[in-house]
C-alpha cells in the first residue's frame, strides 16, 4: 500500500499494463518527452521507448483512426485526448468506427482500445478545456464508458480498461489529479469489475448517485446532511455505460428517494437516463420524483463563473431537500418544479 496522487496512480496503472503486455501502446499529443500536459504519462516513453509511447501529430481523428488500424493489427492502443473539448474532431472515428467495428465484422475484429479523456471543470481553464462529453458516448452502442473518482480505482480501472476486449472511454476528473490516496498495487485486478458501482457511504433516507469529479463533493454533502439528521447513501457509478442499475435499484428500494448529480448539462444527460431507468424499475418504492442536480444547459462558462455551473455541496444538499420534500430553493413555487 502506498500513497499517491490520482495522476500518479494512472501512470502506475499504465506502466503495469505496458509491462504485462507488449501489445499495449500509448498514443497522443505531447505524451512522450513532456509526459502529457497533465504529466500522466511522465517517464513512460523514457522507459518503454518511442515505439510504444508515440508522440502523435495534432490530429484527433488521426489519432483515433490510426489506433483502429493498430487494433486491426493486434495492438491494444491507449489514446490520450489532451482535453475533453478536443475529442469532437475524433467523434466520427469513435462512434462510427471504434464502436461498431466488432459488430460490423460479426466479432472478427476486436477493438481493445482505451481512450483516456481528462474531463470536467473546476481548474479555471479557457473554453474547450472543461467539458463533460460523456453522454455522447454512453448513447453509442459498442462503447464502454467509465469514470474514476479516486487513486485506487484509477490504478485498477485503467488496467481493466486496457485488458477489456471492448473499446473503453476512460474519463479522468482533471480537477482531482492532485488528490492523494492510498493505492494497493498488489490488488487482484479480477477481484472487482469496472462495470460495478460502488457504495461510497451507506445511508437510509436518500440515494445520491454520482461519478468522477463529484464523488468527493457528494461524500461531503452526505457528511453535512448527517449533521442535519439526514442519512444519505452515496453511490459512485464508476461505469457510465453500462450503468450498474442493480446497485442503484437496491439502494433506492431502501431509501425511496433518488438524487443524481453530474457536471454535464442536464438535458439528455446521464441524470435523465438514471431517473427514467430507476423510475421504471422501482416506481412503487419511490417517495418522490428523482431529482437532478447538474450543470446548466449552457456552453461551459468562463472560469470566473464556472463554480455556479458546477454542482457544489450546497446545490447537492438543496437537491436532497427537494427529494425529501423539505424546505428548499424551489419550495416557494406553486405547481410542478421547473
Amino acid at each position, binding site marked *: 500500500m502506498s500513497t499517491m496522487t490520482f495522476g500518479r496512480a494512472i501512470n502506475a496503472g499504465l506502466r503495469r499494463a505496458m509491462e504485462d503486455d507488449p501489445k499495449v501502446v500509448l498514443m497522443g499529443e505531447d505524451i512522450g518527452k513532456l509526459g502529457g500536459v497533465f504529466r500522466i504519462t511522465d517517464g513512460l516513453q523514457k522507459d518503454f521507448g518511442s515505439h510504444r509511447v508515440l508522440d502523435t501529430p495534432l490530429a484527433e481523428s488521426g489519432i483515433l483512426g490510426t489506433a483502429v488500424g493498430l487494433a486491426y493489427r493486434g495492438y491494444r492502443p491507449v489514446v490520450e485526448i489532451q482535453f475533453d473539448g478536443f475529442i469532437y*474532431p475524433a467523434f466520427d*472515428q469513435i462512434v462510427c468506427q471504434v464502436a461498431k467495428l466488432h459488430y460490423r465484422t460479426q466479432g472478427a475484429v476486436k477493438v481493445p482500445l482505451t481512450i483516456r479523456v481528462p474531463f470536467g471543470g473546476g481548474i479555471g481553464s479557457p473554453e474547450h478545456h472543461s467539458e463533460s462529453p460523456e453522454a455522447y458516448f454512453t448513447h453509442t452502442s459498442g462503447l464502454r464508458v467509465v469514470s474514476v473518482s479516486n487513486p485506487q480505482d484509477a490504478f485498477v480501472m485503467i488496467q481493466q480498461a486496457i485488458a477489456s476486449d471492448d473499446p473503453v472511454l476512460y474519463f479522468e476528473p482533471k480537477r482531482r489529479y492532485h488528490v492523494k490516496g492510498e493505492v494497493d498495487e498488489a490488488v487482484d485486478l479480477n477481484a472487482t469489475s469496472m462495470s460495478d458501482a460502488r457504495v461510497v457511504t451507506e445511508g437510509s433516507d436518500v440515494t445520491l448517485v454520482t461519478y468522477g469529479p463529484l464523488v468527493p463533493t457528494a461524500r461531503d454533502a452526505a457528511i453535512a446532511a448527517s449533521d442535519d439528521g439526514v442519512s444519505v447513501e452515496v453511490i459512485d457509478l464508476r461505469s457510465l455505460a453500462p450503468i450498474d442499475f442493480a446497485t442503484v435499484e437496491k439502494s433506492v428500494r431502501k431509501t425511496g428517494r433518488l438524487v443524481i448529480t453530474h457536471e454535464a448539462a442536464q438535458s439528455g444527460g446521464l441524470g435523465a437516463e438514471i431517473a427514467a431507468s430507476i423510475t421504471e424499475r422501482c416506481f412503487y418504492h419511490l417517495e418522490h420524483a428523482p431529482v437532478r442536480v447538474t450543470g446548466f444547459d449552457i456552453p461551459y462558462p468562463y472560469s470566473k463563473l464556472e463554480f455556479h455551473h458546477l454542482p457544489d455541496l450546497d446545490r447537492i444538499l438543496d437537491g436532497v431537500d427537494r427529494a425529501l420534500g423539505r424546505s428548499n430553493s424551489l419550495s416557494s413555487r406553486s405547481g410542478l418544479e421547473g
Partner: protein
Amino acid sequence: MPLNNDADATQDELVQLIAPNGERRSNAAYDRWVSDVDDAGLQALYEDMIVIRRIDAEATALQRQGELALWPPLLGQEAAQIGSGRALREDDFVFSSYRENGVAYCRGVDLTDLLRVWRGNASSGWDPYAINMAPPQVIIGAQTLHATGYAMGVLADGADSVAVTYFGDGATSQGDVNEAMVFAASYQAPVIFFCQNNQWAISEPVRLQAHVPIAHRAPGFGIPSVRVDGNDVLACLAVTREALDRARTGGGPTFIEAVTYRMGPHTTADDPTRYRDANELEDWAAKDPIARLAALLDARGLLSAEVSDAVKATADDVAARLREGCISMPEPQILDVFKHVYSEPNSWLDRQQDHYEQYLTYFDSADADSAASNLSKEANR
C-alpha cells in the same frame, strides 16, 4: 462560383503502358515492373476484368429485380481495381471504400459474401482476416487512417507487408485522408494511398474537390505520388508494384492517383443523367479499359475464339454462382442483431435482449393460443 477546369486536363503526364487503341507504349521507368507479364498474364488480366464487369452487371440486375437493396457499380474502373489488386501479396491488407468489389475479387472473396451487405443480411460480408481486407467503408475516407495505423503496426512488428487503402476523388476533401497522409509521412508507414479518381463524387465533379491534380498534393505531405492511366490495367499493375516495393523496403508511403471514369451511376439509387453530359460518357467509353486490352490481345493474336469463349464461360459461371448465392442466402435470425455489439457481457443489452425474447415468446404463445382457440371453435361447429 468559378471552378478550375484544368485539374484533370493534364492527361499527358499519366503513366500509360497501353494506349486507348490498344497499342503497347514503352516506358523506361515502368516497363520493368511488368516485364514478367507474358501472354498468359495478359489474358488472365483480361479475364479478371471481364469477370468483374460481369459480377457488376449481375449485381445491378439483382438490384433491379429487388434482390438487393442497393449496389455500387464499378463499371469503367476494372483496370484500376484489377491492376492494383493483382499486384498485392496475400499478407498485404486492404482498407477500401464500398466500390472495390474488383479488389475483393482479387483477394479471393466468396462471391456470396460480396452481396450480404447489399441484400441487407449482414453488416459486412466477410471475416477481414480471411481475405486480409477490411469490410467496405461507407464513411468517406475513414479507412485511410485505419490503413495507416495498420501499417504503423506492420512497421512495429518488423514485417514487410503493406496496407493499401482505396478511396475516391471526393474523399480527398475529407480531413481523415489528409490526416492519414500526415501520419503516414510522419511515421514512414508502409501504406499505399490508391485514389480512384473516377471524376465524380455522386454529382460533384472532381474540379469541385481539386484545383490541381490530386496526386500533386501528396508531395506536400512528403509522400511520393504518381498519376496513372486508371483505364490501363498494365500501368496500374506497374505503379502499384513499384509502390509496394518502396513500402516493403522501408521507403514509406506512396500516393497513386488512378485517373479513370465511373461509367455508371454512383449507386443504383443515382441518376447520372441529371448531372452529367452524355458526350462525356462517350469520350470515356472510347478509353474503355477492357476494350483497350482486348485490342492489344487481338493485335498479338491472343484473343482467339477459343480464348474468348473460355473467358465468357468463366464469367457466365461466376454470374450464375453469384445469383444462386444471392437468392439462396438464408434469412438472418432476429436475435442475431444483439450479437457482437460487445466482446464482453453488457447488462443494458442483456436486459433488452431478454425483454425482447420474452416479447417474442409471448406473441408466439399468444398466436398459438389463438390458433388453438380457433381450432377448438372449428371443432365445436
